C-alpha cells in the first residue's frame, strides 16, 4: 500500500459531493459543521450526513473579501468564501449548518453566513473549567438536538445517540492507534502523508467505509514497523506540531518543514491526536457525555486553556520530540497570544528549540518561512555537536 494521498483537497471534496448527491436522491439529509466543538454524533444519530465546511484553501478568499475585512483570519474568510463564492461543491448540499461562538471572527462571520442556509449557533462558554460552564454547554447541546430534529423533521432517540457515540469512539480509537504508530523511532509515515490520508479518509458518506480505510492504514503502519520499512532516516529532527494547519489543503507549512529535513511525528490540537485519545463516556447519559467530552477541546478561544499545556508537556516526552513548531493563522489573536506561554513551556521547561510561525494560506511568504524553518532545524541538528570535540585535536591529522 502506498502511503501517499494523491488527491488534492479539491478532488476529495468533489468526489464526496457526488456521493452526497446520490445519497440525497435517496432521501438523506446533510448537516454542515464548522468546528471541533460540534458533537458530530448528534448528526449521525439523526441518520444524516455530517460535512465539514471549514475553509482551508486560498481559492474562496477573494470572494469573501468583498464583504469581510481583509485583515481577518484566513480560515474565517475561506469558510465564508466557500458559502458565497461558488467554488465549493459541498456547501450547496447542506440542509442546515451549525456553528459555535468560538472566536470573534467566526462569531461575527456566522451572522452573515446565516443568510445562506438555516443556521444554528451554539453558545460556547469561554471558561470551561468552571462548573457553570458545563451546565450551560449541556443546555446548548439539548437545544442543538431540538434544532436538528426540527430542521430534518426527525426524532433523535437515546438509542441512536448511544449507537452513534460508540461508532465515533471506534473511529477515535482507530485514529489514536494510527497516530501512536509514530511514537516509533524512526517513524513509519511522514506527517504530511498521515494528515493527507486521514483527512481524505474522513470524507465519506458511509461511516463503515471510513472505518475500513483506517483499518487498512493501521495494518500497513504496523507492518512497516515490524518489517522495519521506515519513512525517513533516524537523524531527522522529530517535530511536535501545535496550533493550527493540520489538514489537507492548509498544509503549506507542514509540507515545507518536511521538505527542509524535519519530520512531524505528532500533532497537538485541532486535527491532531489529543482529543482522539479522549473518547465520549459510553456509560453516562449520552447528552451529558457528549457535552462533557466536547467542552474539553483545547482551542485557544478558551481560557486559560490549561489542558493544551498539559497535552504538549506530555507529548514532548512520549514522542521523543527534538523541537516544537507552533503555527498561528494571521489575525488569530488567541493562538497568537497563547504562543508566548507555549514558548515558555517548550524553551524553559524542556530546553527545546521552539518556532512560532504566523502566516496565511497564500504562497507569497514561502521564502521567508523557509529560512526560519531551516534555521530552526539547524538549531536541532547543529546544536547536537559533541561538546568534547575540539578543532585543534583534529588538525593534527591534516
Amino acid at each position, binding site marked *: 500500500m502506498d502511503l501517499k494521498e494523491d488527491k488534492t483537497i479539491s478532488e476529495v471534496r468533489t468526489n464526496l459531493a457526488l456521493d452526497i448527491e446520490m445519497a440525497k436522491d435517496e432521501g438523506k439529509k446533510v448537516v454542515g459543521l464548522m468546528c471541533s466543538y460540534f458533537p458530530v454524533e448528534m448528526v449521525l444519530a439523526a441518520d444524516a450526513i455530517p460535512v465539514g465546511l471549514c475553509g482551508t484553501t486560498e481559492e474562496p478568499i477573494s470572494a469573501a473579501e468583498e464583504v469581510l475585512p481583509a485583515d481577518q483570519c484566513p480560515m474565517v474568510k475561506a469558510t465564508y468564501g466557500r458559502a458565497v463564492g461558488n467554488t465549493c461543491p459541498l456547501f450547496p448540499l447542506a440542509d442546515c449548518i451549525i456553528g459555535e461562538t468560538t472566536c470573534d471572527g467566526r462569531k461575527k462571520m456566522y451572522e452573515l453566513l446565516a443568510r445562506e442556509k438555516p443556521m444554528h449557533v451554539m453558545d460556547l462558554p469561554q471558561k470551561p473549567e468552571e462548573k457553570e460552564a458545563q451546565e450551560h454547554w449541556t443546555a446548548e447541546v439539548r437545544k442543538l438536538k431540538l434544532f436538528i430534529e426540527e430542521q430534518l423533521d426527525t426524532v433523535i432517540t437515546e438509542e441512536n445517540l448511544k449507537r452513534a457515540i460508540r461508532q465515533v469512539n471506534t473511529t477515535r480509537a482507530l485514529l489514536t492507534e494510527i497516530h501512536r504508530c509514530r511514537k516509533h523511532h524512526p517513524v513509519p509515515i511522514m506527517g504530511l502523508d498521515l494528515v493527507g490520508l486521514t483527512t481524505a479518509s474522513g470524507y465519506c458518506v458511509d461511516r463503515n467505509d471510513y472505518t475500513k480505510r483506517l483499518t487498512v492504514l493501521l495494518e500497513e503502519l504496523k507492518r512497516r514497523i515490524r518489517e522495519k520499512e521506515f519513512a525517513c532516516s533516524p537523524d531527522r529532527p522529530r517535530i511536535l506540531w501545535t496550533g493550527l494547519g493540520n489538514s489537507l489543503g492548509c498544509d503549506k507549512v507542514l509540507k515545507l518543514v518536511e521538505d527542509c529535513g524535519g519530520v512531524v511525528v505528532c500533532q497537538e490540537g485541532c486535527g491532531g491526536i489529543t482529543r482522539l485519545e479522549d473518547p465520549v463516556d459510553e456509560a453516562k447519559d449520552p447528552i451529558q457525555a457528549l457535552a462533557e467530552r466536547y467542552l474539553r477541546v483545547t482551542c485557544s478561544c478558551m481560557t486559560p486553556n490549561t489542558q493544551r499545556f498539559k497535552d504538549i508537556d506530555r507529548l514532548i516526552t512520549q514522542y521523543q520530540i527534538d523541537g516544537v513548531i507552533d503555527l498561528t493563522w494571521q489575525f488569530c489573536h488567541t493562538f497568537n497570544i497563547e504562543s508566548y506561554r507555549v514558548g515558555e513551556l517548550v524553551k524553559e521547561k524542556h530546553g527545546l*528549540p521552539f518556532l512560532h510561525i504566523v502566516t496565511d494560506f497564500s504562497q507569497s511568504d514561502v521564502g521567508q518561512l523557509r*529560512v*526560519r524553518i531551516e*534555521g530552526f532545524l*539547524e*538549531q536541532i541538528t*547543529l*546544536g547536537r555537536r559533541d561538546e568534547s570535540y575540539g578543532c585543534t585535536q583534529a588538525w593534527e591529522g591534516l
Partner: protein
Amino acid sequence: MLPMQETKAESPVFAGIDVGSLTAKCVLISKNGMHAYAVMDTGAKPDKAGETVFVQALDKASAEKSNVRYSVGTGYGRISLSFVDRVVTELTCHARGAHFLDPAVRTVIDIGGQDSKVIRVNPDGSMSDFIMNDKCAAGTGRFLQIMARALETELENLGEFSLTSSQPSRINSICTVFAESEVVSLLASGEKMENIAAGLHRSVAKRVGNMAKRLGLQKKIVFVGGVAKNIGVRNALEDYLEIRFASLDQDPQIIGALGAAVLARERYLSA
C-alpha cells in the same frame, strides 16, 4: 583579529560564501587562522556573485580552488550557489561567526540590506533562538540607503555625519516610503540634516531594539551586518537598549561568511 598568512599550495583552506540581497561576501580560513575576505555588490545574479566573490577572496589569499577542501554557502542567495558543498542559513552562520571571534558572545544583532535579525547564541556557538524582520524595509540597510539619497549624502557618511546632531528629529512614519516623504518635508522646513540623520538612526534603533527586547538580550551582545558600520545606528541602539556592544575587532559585514567558513572547517574535520 585573525592573523593573515600566505597560503602554500597544499594547505587546506575552507570557504564561507554569504550572498545577501545587496552584497556578497567570501571568507577563507585555514588551520593557521589565515584569512582573506572579499566583498562586492550582489547585483541581479546571486549565483554569479557567489562565484565571483569566491574567486576574489582566493586571489587575495594567493590560493587556488584546489586548496579549498569544503565550502558552505549562506545568505538570501544561498540556494542558487551550485558550487558549494553545503548550505546553511545566515541565522546559524552569524551566530557561529560572532562566537568564533569571541566565545563569550550570547546575542547577535544583525542589520543587513533587506532584513534585520536578533540571534541568541549557545555557549557552544550554535543558535538557541532567533527573531527576524524580513517583511518590511523599515529598520534595514535599504531604509538608510533611501534616506541617504533623500539627504543627498553618501550612505557611508550618514553615521559620522549624525554625530554632530544636537537635537535628533522625530520621524513619525514607520514605512520607508512615507518616511522618505517626511524627510523631504523636514528639509524643506529648515530642519538640519544632521538632526534628521540622527532621528532616522533612532527610528532604526527603536524598530530593531524592540525585536531584541522581545527575544531577550544576554551579554555579551554584538552588532553585525553592513549597517553596523554606521556609528550613528550603533550609538542609537546602545542608547535605546541601555547596553554596550562588545567589540569583535573585525569587519562586521563579513561575520556571516566567517561563520559559514567555520562551519565548513568543522564539517570537513568531523567527517
